[in-house]
């Protein structure tokens, strides 16, 4: 296989971004062509790599820099893990790029959007391909930056600017831990490659948890989940690309990539963090009314699943779910974008309704995505979710298994709530009456993604990744019914969960004009609607810390710097000056006396001391 092949995958999007920024700002068509072309070629090369992939992983690297004993490579690591991610990022990315051509049509900053998009693709591919912690961290941060640029794309809106800031700062918090973890790992093992492992023990757990911090930030796990829903302020394709399919998956991908670093204790913490996030996000999603926010919390919840899977010791399952999730969540977001586009930027689900007739393609693709997300047999979500539940059941974490089933019920419930309210029932506003189907350039990606969502569970993703993690079991039964044979408890629990959730949603929302739940749940509904008050809590904590710091700084400034140093210096000088002034008597005799006395003292000191 050609060692040079991975390099253009990485650098084509960067070249596109640079060209667009420098030369084609005014020529929208060319910008879009460059950007789409770059990622399409990257996709094609990825496919070539995938087809030719041998059993063994291979690396192509150059020596980047040498600091003392530390050698840092800039390398490309190609194994089944990164190949899978490459396909997701470039494949789903291509769909979203194409979709964006339609969605962003007429936006005054059209070219800038594609430059940012290409730059993001470059950063994301860098994370996927990097072969050591150092390189990964750099691309990790680049992903943060490009995400900042894209969330704040409509920076004229203060809410978008604030959301971008919030996402960036929250991510910084996680990245700080990540960086500390990398530095600790380096100081323990002396190397930065993914293969370097600390000796088992408390230190290893600390290193693992610090590195996990990076994933917590980027994959929006509890307690750093607050930025993701706000990030929906960006354009919808961005929400789909970054905050559903790829970037947030980077955290999960990173956990899988460095899986060997984590000790058992660290894994337990990771599993529970994922589980708690999944449950919490699913609960919040039940009471949201903004179509993109519901999907955002759904993403959070699914990311929780993946992290939980990693924590349970199942990176293949996590990657499996990540892949299928990338398909159907990108699909759902793009379909939501299509709805928003058709209703001229209306995002409140209680102002939609009865879109089935007016937007048939969107309706059917959205339905496919919903079913896949809920885990209806035989769509992709069923298999990936089932593999996680099976892993939980098999590893004996029954609490986490139960939690997963509850989350599955909630997932079905809030997704069908969304589905019923938006597409069925009666029109709930004038805009919904004038809705129209989106152009071909937008619906085509929907269809492709819908197809992938349907069959994604059957194409053997799990074994493909699994072989890298030493998973040898081969299913001899037909793939389509394999889960029922191998892990019947998990499979039937999953299906039962879907049924429960679906029935509950249908009874409550099939004909509803307003949300009946707040009246029934009262306080709890408000708690869910307000997202468990995390934002307010953080704001309070930050305000308190800031006030404390500020008062300390104020004290330092007012009394130490201003009082002691500035005014103290001035005061001392003035006091000494006032005292010394009396010596300046103008009396020549006194001067002569002082002089003589001084001579006497000096003589005494020199001669007799």
């Amino acid at each position, binding site marked *: 296989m050609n060692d040079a092949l991975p390099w253009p995958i990485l650098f084509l999007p960067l070249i596109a971004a640079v060209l667009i920024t420098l030369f084609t700002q005014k020529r929208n068509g060319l910008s879009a062509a460059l950007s789409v072309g770059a990622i399409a070629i990257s996709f094609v090369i990825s496919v070539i790599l995938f087809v030719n992939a041998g059993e063994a992983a291979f690396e192509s690297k150059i020596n980047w820099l040498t600091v003392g004993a530390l050698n840092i490579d800039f390398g490309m690591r190609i194994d089944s893990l990164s190949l899978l991610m490459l396909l997701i990022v470039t494949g789903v990315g291509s769909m979203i790029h194409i979709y964006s051509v339609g969605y962003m049509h007429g936006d005054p900053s059209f070219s800038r959007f594609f430059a940012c998009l290409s730059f993001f693709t470059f950063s994301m591919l860098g994370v996927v391909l990097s072969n050591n912690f150092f390189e990964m961290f750099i691309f990790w941060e680049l992903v943060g930056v490009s995400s900042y640029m894209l969330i704040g794309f409509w920076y004229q809106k203060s809410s978008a600017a604030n959301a971008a800031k919030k996402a960036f700062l929250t991510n910084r918090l996680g990245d700080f831990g990540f960086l500390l973890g990398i530095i600790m790992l380096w100081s323990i093992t002396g190397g930065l490659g993914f293969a370097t492992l600390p000796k088992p023990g408390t230190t290893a757990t600390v290193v693992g948890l610090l590195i996990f911090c990076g994933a917590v930030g980027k994959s929006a796990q509890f307690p750093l989940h607050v930025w993701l829903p706000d990030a929906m302020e960006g354009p919808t394709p961005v929400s789909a690309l970054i905050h559903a399919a790829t970037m947030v998956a980077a955290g999960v991908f990173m956990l899988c990539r460095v899986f060997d670093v984590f000790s058992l204790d660290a894994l337990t913490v990771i599993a529970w963090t994922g589980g708690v996030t999944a449950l919490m996000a699913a609960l919040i999603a039940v009471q949201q009314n903004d179509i993109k926010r519901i999907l955002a919390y759904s993403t959070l919840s699914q990311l929780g699943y993946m992290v939980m899977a990693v924590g349970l010791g199942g990176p293949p399952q996590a990657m499996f779910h990540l892949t299928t999730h990338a398909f159907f969540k990108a699909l759902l977001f793009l379909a939501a974008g299509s709805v928003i586009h058709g209703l001229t930027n209306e995002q409140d689900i209680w102002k939609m309704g009865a879109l089935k007739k007016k937007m048939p393609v969107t309706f059917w693709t959205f339905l496919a995505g919903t079913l896949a997300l809920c885990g209806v047999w035989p769509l992709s979500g069923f298999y990936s979710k089932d593999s996680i539940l099976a892993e939980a059941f098999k590893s004996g974490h029954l609490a986490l298994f139960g939690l997963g089933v509850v989350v599955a019920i909630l997932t079905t419930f809030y997704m069908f709530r969304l589905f019923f309210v938006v597409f069925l029932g009666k029109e709930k506003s004038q805009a919904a009456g004038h809705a129209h189907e989106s152009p071909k350039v937008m619906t085509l990606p929907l269809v492709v993604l819908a197809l992938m969502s349907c069959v994604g569970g059957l194409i053997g993703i799990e074994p493909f990744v699994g072989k890298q993690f030493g998973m040898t079991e081969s299913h001899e039964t037909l793939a389509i019914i394999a889960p029922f044979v191998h892990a019947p408890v998990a499979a039937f629990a999953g299906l039962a969960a879907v049924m429960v959730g679906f029935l509950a949603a249908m009874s409550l929302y099939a004909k509803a004009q307003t949300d009946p739940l707040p009246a029934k749940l009262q306080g709890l509904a408000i708690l869910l609607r307000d997202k468990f008050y995390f934002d307010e809590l953080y704001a309070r904590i930050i305000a308190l810390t800031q006030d404390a710091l500020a008062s300390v700084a104020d004290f330092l400034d007012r009394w130490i710097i201003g009082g002691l140093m500035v005014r103290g210096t001035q005061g001392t000088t003035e006091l000494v000056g006032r005292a010394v002034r009396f010596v300046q008597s103008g009396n020549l*005799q006194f001067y002569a*006396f002082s002089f*003589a*006395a001084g*001579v*006497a003292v000096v*003589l*005494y000191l020199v*001669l007799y001391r």
Partner: protein
Amino acid sequence: MNALDYFFYLFAGLTLLCGLMVVVNPFSRNPVTSAMFLVLMMVSLSGLYVTLHAFFLAAVQILVYAGAVMVLFLFVIMLLDLKEEEHRKIKLATLFLGALSVGSIAFILVKLLGNARLVSDAPSAEGSTIELGLKLFRQYTLPFEIVSLLLLVAMMGAILLSKKEIK
């Protein structure tokens, strides 16, 4: 202790006495008296130079100091037409402080000299004019010339300062 040595004690005593008279003058408060005692002190000092066999310097001392410098002093005193100083009492505190500081310096110096073991050859150097002249014009030519310049500058400065209106 030969006869010449008595001259040392004579001139030393005279020098100190006249010096004292310059500083504390019991006869008159007129500065002219002090000036005259200063002249006497210079002369007896040149006597001391003679006992040190520095004949040329003794002559120069009398010529320059007693002659030129003191004449200048007297000129100025008379030019200023100083009346007798008003009887302003010297403050006791000034006297005390002066005596204290100067006394301590004197004490230190004399004690130091008493303790010092000075390495001295037998008094041998003859301060003959020929040798001094040779040294001045060979080894010290440059300083000599510079000093002559200094005198020129001093002269110009004195003339400028003494002009009635300095513009």
